[in-house]
């Protein structure tokens, strides 16, 4: 520092007592975290408590003893791995279909000046507003007529259809804010349309694809009604249905432990997925394309 610089005294926390801002922030964050994470924590703890601890009165909040018994039971008594794979397959395929069909449609709606664009958008919007439960009976008949019961397609097709409108709307607004100059620069550079879409537009679109993909995936992974009705064979069931159908040895025993374990196992893939892609979502690859 130059000697002539006047000494600036910053008000430091020690001089003026406690600086309240970070303290308040910390408390608030803690409360919000407790509020939203407590049920999950409770399930997690239940899934590793012994049966004795689960049924003890007063409640045991933080157990001393831990057991993996419930998890082992889950895989012993039922084809639980199979359920996970079913869920994963259905969710992944419908998500990919959704992105594969929705993104080109969104790009066309954002970039080409189509006749009746407003009409198409209106229709898409209406579909998102439509409660999907209302489709249920109609779909059931269709599934019966086509003989699609106990077939992955019976879930993949409706999941894709339900997620498609949201995908189109989100991706369209993303494409709209993508600078047009980028595509023009690619054209001047000599990219043809396919190369431009594949090598320039697609890579810059990844954050949006991941975000919408995760939303679609979560929906497909958690969906219950369709999965319950269209899949009756044991080997075709998905996780939410299987978890709900875990029963005890007698009518009066509620198997809290295994249910909690199933819930944890069912949620874990989603948590991992979001954590894994979080950086990509936040990163926003378009940063730096144009002068910020």
């Amino acid at each position, binding site marked *: 520092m130059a000697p002539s610089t006047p000494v600036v005294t910053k008000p430091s926390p020690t001089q003026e007592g406690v600086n309240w801002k970070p303290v308040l922030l910390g408390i608030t964050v803690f409360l919000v975290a407790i509020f939203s994470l407590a049920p999950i924590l409770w399930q997690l703890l239940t899934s590793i408590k012994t049966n004795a601890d689960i049924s003890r009165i007063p409640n045991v909040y933080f157990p001393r003893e831990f057991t993996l018994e419930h998890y082992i039971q889950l895989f012993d008594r039922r084809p639980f791995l199979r359920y996970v794979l079913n869920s994963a397959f259905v969710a992944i395929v419908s998500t990919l279909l959704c992105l594969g069909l929705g993104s080109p449609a969104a790009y066309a709606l954002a970039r080409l000046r189509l006749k009746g664009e407003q009409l198409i958008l209106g229709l898409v919007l209406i579909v998102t507003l439509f409660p999907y439960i209302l489709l249920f009976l109609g779909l059931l008949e269709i599934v019966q007529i086509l003989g699609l019961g106990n077939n992955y397609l019976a879930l993949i097709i409706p999941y894709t259809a339900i997620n498609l409108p949201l995908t189109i709307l989100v991706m369209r607004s993303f494409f709209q804010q993508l*600078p047009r*100059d*980028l595509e023009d620069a690619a*054209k*001047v550079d000599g990219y043809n349309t396919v190369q431009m879409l594949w090598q320039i537009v697609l890579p810059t679109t990844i954050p949006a694809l991941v975000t919408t993909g995760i939303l679609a995936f979560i929906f497909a992974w958690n969906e219950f009604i369709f999965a319950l009705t269209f899949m009756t064979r044991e080997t075709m069931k998905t996780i939410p249905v299987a978890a709900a159908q875990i029963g005890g040895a007698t009518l009066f025993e509620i198997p809290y432990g295994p249910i909690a374990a199933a819930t944890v196992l069912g949620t874990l893939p989603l948590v991992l997925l979001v954590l894994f892609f979080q950086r990509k979502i936040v990163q926003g690859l378009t940063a*730096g394309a144009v002068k910020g």
Partner: protein
Amino acid sequence: MAKLEVTHLNKTYSPKIVPVKDLSLAVEDGEFLTLLGPSGCGKSTTLRLIAGLEQPTRGEVLIGSKNVTHRSAGDRNIAMVFQSYALYPHMTVFENIASGLKLRKTPVGEIQQRVAEASRVLDLDGLMQRKPSKLSGGQRQRVALGRALVRKPDVFLLDEPLSNLDALLREQVRAELKQLFQSQNTPVVYVTHDQTEAMTLSTKVAVLYKGDLQQLDSPQRIYSHPANQFVAGFIGSPQMNLLTLPCENSHALLGEARVPLPQVTEPQPAGQIVLGIRPEHLQVGKQPDCTAVRGQVFLIENLGMSDLVSMHVQNSELTLRALIANTTLKAGDELVLSLPPQQLHWFDIETRSRIPVQPETVAH
């Protein structure tokens, strides 16, 4: 190498939106043409038509006397620098600059060599492996230039490449651009709404207004012989004084002063004429051979080098603005300004076009 020509270019988006009406231009090798005009006058549209990013409604684009009107942008061998730079965000600086060459299947060795050369000229060494998001505005701008330079195109197109830089950097890059393109010997078309850029960089300036070409001339002539009242008012800062004056016999009346009309002038039908004089050409005090105008100062603006003095002309509603160096004038003072006859511009009150003054040189 390749001359760029556009003939009777027209772009009609809808009957109401016609950003380019009927434009014909030619840019030779080594010429630097600037399209200058206010916002929305169709500069970018013209550039995009030349680039092939838009199809003209009518008219043709010729590069090296080949008609390229119906070729795609990638087939025209042009390079374009965008206002937003439009760097590919997922590629490194090297990949950004090399992408056009790679697509044209240029041998790897040559790509390396050309990129290295551009990087030396633009001082990009050391940035080659960075992503655009890790660059400053000025560096991004240079990468965008580099992407254009390595292509060795037949025509360079630049759309307001400096408008995102801060004032100081803009001046510096402007000088660099000038040197850079002087060494290229390729037609350059440059779009800007900044007249300083247009005046300093160009060999030729095309002033556009509402889709029409107002004047196509050297920067010097655009300044000294504006073709009409719009160009006169648009070029030059501070703006030219433009006064609508009544005529009497062979004189125009400016307050009590009588300004002799140019000799060729036919009697003005409406009895009025527009007189233009630049603030920097007005002189203080009564000068020989000049018409003198008396008035009262009401505003003084300090521009650094000199002061911009505004005065009410005596016995009229008109005001005159003059650039005067280190003045001690203050508001309310009396002032006499002289109008040198060779610095006067006359415009027709109806057509708004320039009335030539004899003897006026027609050539450049």
